[in-house]
């Protein structure tokens, strides 16, 4: 109790915590890949206004945007076993906890990314598609060659913000018992009774990674933003 913070413990903690960043990275990658797939499917359904599915997806997006991440994670953690056992008699109590985190974050990202994709695709003026059709391109060709390249540019800043938010949200995974950086900090805390150094290191780690990612997206955005050069 004499000293709250000591640099010795701070530096001791670094090699103990840093390897667990891989858990976080895995969650982020998994959620992003499946979120993009889910987001594209949802965006297509919403743009083409496919009946029934459109309404279901509307509710899904509203739910994901309207409830806290923590609640969604717990719902998947407690709800998925009940649903799977009720429907297919599957027992998934032995699943690794991190799988529930993957599923939650993928579902959550699917909703948020679909909104980003949808608004990006809709932001491309319809004259662009018409121009494509008028030179004899099919719908898919028009979408791939004309609409998509323009939509990607619009979607990128939103995607970047979302990606960094996802990275920060993964720190919630320790609340269901996944050992990521935060979970590791907690175990260090129970072992040594000194946890503040671990938390401060994690805060620094997240800050540094977030800023690096921000800079990365910023430069990617600049590279893709060729509009001004062309028009001048």
């Amino acid at each position, binding site marked *: *109790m004499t000293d*709250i913070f000591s640099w010795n413990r701070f530096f001791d903690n670094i090699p103990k915590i840093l390897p667990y960043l891989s858990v976080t990275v895995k969650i982020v990658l998994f959620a992003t890949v499946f979120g993009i797939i889910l987001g594209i499917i949802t965006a297509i359904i919403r743009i083409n206004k496919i009946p029934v599915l459109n309404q279901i997806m509307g509710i899904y997006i*509203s*739910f994901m*945007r*309207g*409830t*806290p*991440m*923590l*609640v*969604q994670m*717990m*719902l998947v953690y*407690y*709800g998925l076993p*009940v649903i799977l*056992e*009720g429907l297919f008699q599957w027992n998934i109590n032995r699943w690794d906890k991190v799988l529930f985190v993957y599923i939650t974050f993928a579902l959550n990202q699917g909703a948020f990314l679909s909104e980003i994709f949808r608004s990006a695709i809709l932001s491309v003026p319809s004259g662009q598609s018409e121009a494509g059709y008028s030179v004899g391109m099919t719908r898919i060709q028009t979408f791939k060659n004309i609409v998509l390249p323009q939509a990607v540019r619009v979607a990128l800043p939103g995607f970047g913000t979302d990606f960094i938010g996802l990275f*920060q*949200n993964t*720190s*919630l995974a*320790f*609340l269901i018992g996944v050992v990521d950086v*935060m979970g590791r900090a907690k175990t260090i805390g129970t072992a040594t009774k000194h*946890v*503040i150094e671990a*938390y*401060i290191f*994690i*805060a620094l780690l*997240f*800050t*540094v*990674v*977030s*800023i690096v990612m*921000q800079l990365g997206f910023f430069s990617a955005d600049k590279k893709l933003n060729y509009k001004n050069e062309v028009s001048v």
Partner: protein
Amino acid sequence: MNISWDYILESLKSGLQYFPNTLKLVMIPTFLGLIIGTIIAFVQTFKIPVIGKLSRVLITLYRGIPIVVALMIYNLLFTLKFEAVARFFRLNISIADVDQIIVGIFALTLMSICLMTESIRGGLIAIDNGQFEAGYSIGLTRMQTLRRIIIPQLIPISIPPLTNNVIGIIKGSSITMAIGITEVLAGALIPGSKSYSFLEGYIAAAVIYWMFTVILEQLSKYLELRGKNFKRSLV
């Protein structure tokens, strides 16, 4: 295992009982964040030396820290250092007299200041520089220009991002459960601790949060429309 409606209802009731706590955790940070965030946004836009740059760097750094981590740190400091600080200021209070909710409010307020600053700065950038110049050219002072020309235009632009921020704070408020504050989520789980109906508790909490955000979104849409009407009637 089935989901029981009775448990969901019980959890809904219990969660709603603690709704005032969630409101406190949302309203106070929103209000403080709006005031302080607006001031910082103006400081940054007018490029006031040192403070402008410094606040920019601090906000960028702070935004990198997840709210859980920040909460954990503040909670630790609060429990470890509160008595010492109180003694230093000759205050005769112990940690037991203080509601832990202030830690949550503190963490969410800092988060809210960062979010609000960014949104309002974005809104200010969206307003054409000519608007400032027009104000100055007819002899208004900087404060008059702000009050009569800039802020009326800023409000409708800022409503959608500000709503998003408030929703973000609502979501953040659920995380304060992790440091032992009883708000909607923790309240909805209280019946579950007796009957092990945690799933029902989380469903009830999700319903409450969902309703809360949907109402907010509708309100924001209505306000946005009104703001636009006001703009149109000027032209």
